[in-house]
């Protein structure tokens, strides 16, 4: 696979506080190809955000990437020094954060924030940087960019701020864009507009990793999806396949608890229970305590990702050994199906 631009293998990230070790990411592997959009979905605390931020060491100081490899265009990011990483951050790999209200520096004009990194990275000089910033702003639909450049973040509305942040990330024309819950803080109409921008960027050939807890957002433009649970991928699949037939019981649960417009006659089913304490992850399958299909073997035997179809693997022995077929959405929680049939 020559066109894989990011190849993460067996990533482990830990956070240490006193004697507690929180294994936030616990053997995560994924690939991103050129021009592809990959969604990483999971609940809060599933390690989806840390699993991506670890690549550029953008994690809190008490966190540590303890194991793994992350080859980006042939270079192992995890082996780079802080100084070398700085030459990649914001240049080849850019970030879009969740809340543009808080992710833009309140004491800097947009001009500073949109051009400074271009100059650091030697992508432009003072004049051409402004030109590039204006182009990037026009590109994301910010009107009157020349005026906006002189403004501070507080002078912009929430939607404009999120656009400005995407423009900031785009201005350096990175080959990989990481969007960490880019729409969570926005209202629905704005969400759609921001997703449209990302979709357009993908069509222009940019690779995108979208981190979200919302499959409804992920399905909008992502080609593939990685479902994370307790710091690991439990299922990796083409987006369409996952939506049609989620394999892992957790994927099923996630899909069943996603609300969609136009959904009727279907019940919204939350997944019972809570994610495990990441300082004491149970042996065996971490999802077993919440899984409707769990048996004794699940509680003792660690689960590995096994291929079950083209471009698709799942970490559940019941699925990979064919004991249960990829579960048509909703079937996993037996008793509820009858209820649904009555409607």
């Amino acid at each position: 696979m020559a066109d894989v631009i990011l190849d993460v293998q067996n990533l482990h990230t830990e956070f240490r506080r006193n004697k507690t070790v929180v294994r936030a990411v616990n053997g995560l592997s994924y690939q991103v190809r050129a021009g592809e959009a990959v969604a990483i979905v999971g609940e809060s605390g599933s390690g989806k955000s840390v699993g991506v931020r670890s690549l550029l060491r953008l994690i809190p100081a008490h966190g540590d990437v303890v194991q793994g490899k992350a080859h980006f265009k042939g270079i192992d990011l995890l082996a780079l020094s802080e100084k070398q990483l700085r030459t990649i951050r914001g240049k080849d790999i850019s970030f879009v954060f969740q809340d543009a209200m808080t992710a833009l520096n309140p004491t800097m004009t947009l001009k500073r924030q949109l051009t400074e990194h271009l100059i650091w990275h030697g992508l432009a000089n003072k004049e051409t940087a402004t030109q590039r910033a204006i182009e990037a702003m026009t590109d994301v639909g910010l009107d009157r960019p020349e005026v906006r450049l002189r403004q501070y973040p507080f002078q912009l509305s929430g939607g404009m701020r999120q656009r400005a942040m995407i423009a900031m990330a785009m201005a350096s024309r990175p080959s990989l864009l990481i969007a960490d819950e880019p729409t969570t803080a926005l209202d629905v109409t704005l969400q759609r507009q921001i997703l449209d921008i990302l979709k357009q960027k993908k069509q222009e050939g940019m690779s995108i990793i979208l981190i979200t807890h919302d499959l409804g957002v992920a399905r909008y433009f992502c080609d593939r999806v990685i479902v994370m649970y307790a710091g690991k991928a439990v299922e990796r699949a083409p987006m369409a396949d996952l939506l049609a037939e989620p394999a892992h019981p957790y994927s099923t649960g996630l899909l069943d608890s996603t609300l969609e417009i136009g959904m009727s006659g279907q019940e919204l089913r939350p997944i019972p229970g809570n994610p495990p304490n990441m300082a004491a992850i149970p042996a065996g399958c971490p999802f077993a305590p919440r899984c409707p299909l769990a048996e004794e073997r699940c509680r003792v035997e660690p689960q590995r990702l096994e291929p079950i179809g083209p471009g698709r693997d799942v970490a559940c022995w019941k699925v990979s050994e064919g004991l249960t077929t990829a579960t048509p959405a909703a079937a996993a929680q037996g008793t509820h199906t009858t209820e649904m049939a009555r409607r």
Partner: protein
Amino acid sequence: MAAVAATPADLPEAAKARGQYARAWDRFKRNRLALVSLVFVALLVLVAIFAPLIAPYGYDETNYAAIRAGFNTDGYLLGTDQIGRDILSRMIFSLRTALIIAIGAEAVAMFLAIVIGMTAGYMGGRVDQWLMALTDILFVFPSYLLIIILVTVFGRSELTIFVAIGISSWVGTARLVRAEVLRLRVREFVEAGKAMGANGPTIALRYILPNSLGPLLVALSFGIPGAIIAEAGLALLGLGVQPPTPSWGTMIQEGQQWVLVSPHLLIWPTGLFALTMLAFTWIGDGLRDAFDPQE
């Protein structure tokens, strides 16, 4: 892609999300006492700067024919002191001394506080522990004793005095800066700056420092009168600026010896001194309320 066509003015969000400094200034302006104090201090600063033009006499011009002259006698508006120097002129020049001491001492203190507080907060770990241990030691060391030692060793020039005061008064502000760094460095925009490729110094100076100016400004407004009081205290101990350069401290110290016969030698400089301190306190209160509206 449709453009978002809206000027910031017609968005309700933009109205509520005004810049923190603009909002702080609005709140400060509403505090009459603070505003009047600010005008008063601004006037004093102007007088200090233009002292030679304003003062009717030189600060060391003696007139033995008019010793301890009273209010408005022989052309001396506020009278003369024990060797016939014009009290008004000496007070005007004292403002200069106070201004130099205050600016110098606070420059030294702020520099040390920002460098040490930022380093401690940003580096964390061992560096933080050692620097905080250092501030703890200085904190319990009596600051007057430190100033007196420094002034005794290095002389009584304005430079040594303000450096000594500065060195003994940065500790509280350094802790404040450290706390601000700890508060801000986990904020998303700092992380975003890192994600864009900013290096350590850029993060510290462009992302963290500008966002912690509010508390620093409050600390400054309490530090300035602190420095002036420290100089006055030194003068009372006979360690103030080298005579004949006047300072409020030396004037008060000299005046108190004549308090029973010519109280005006003490009253005028003490009065202005007290008013100035009061003005700074009110400005400080105003600033604190302006930056911390919850209270």
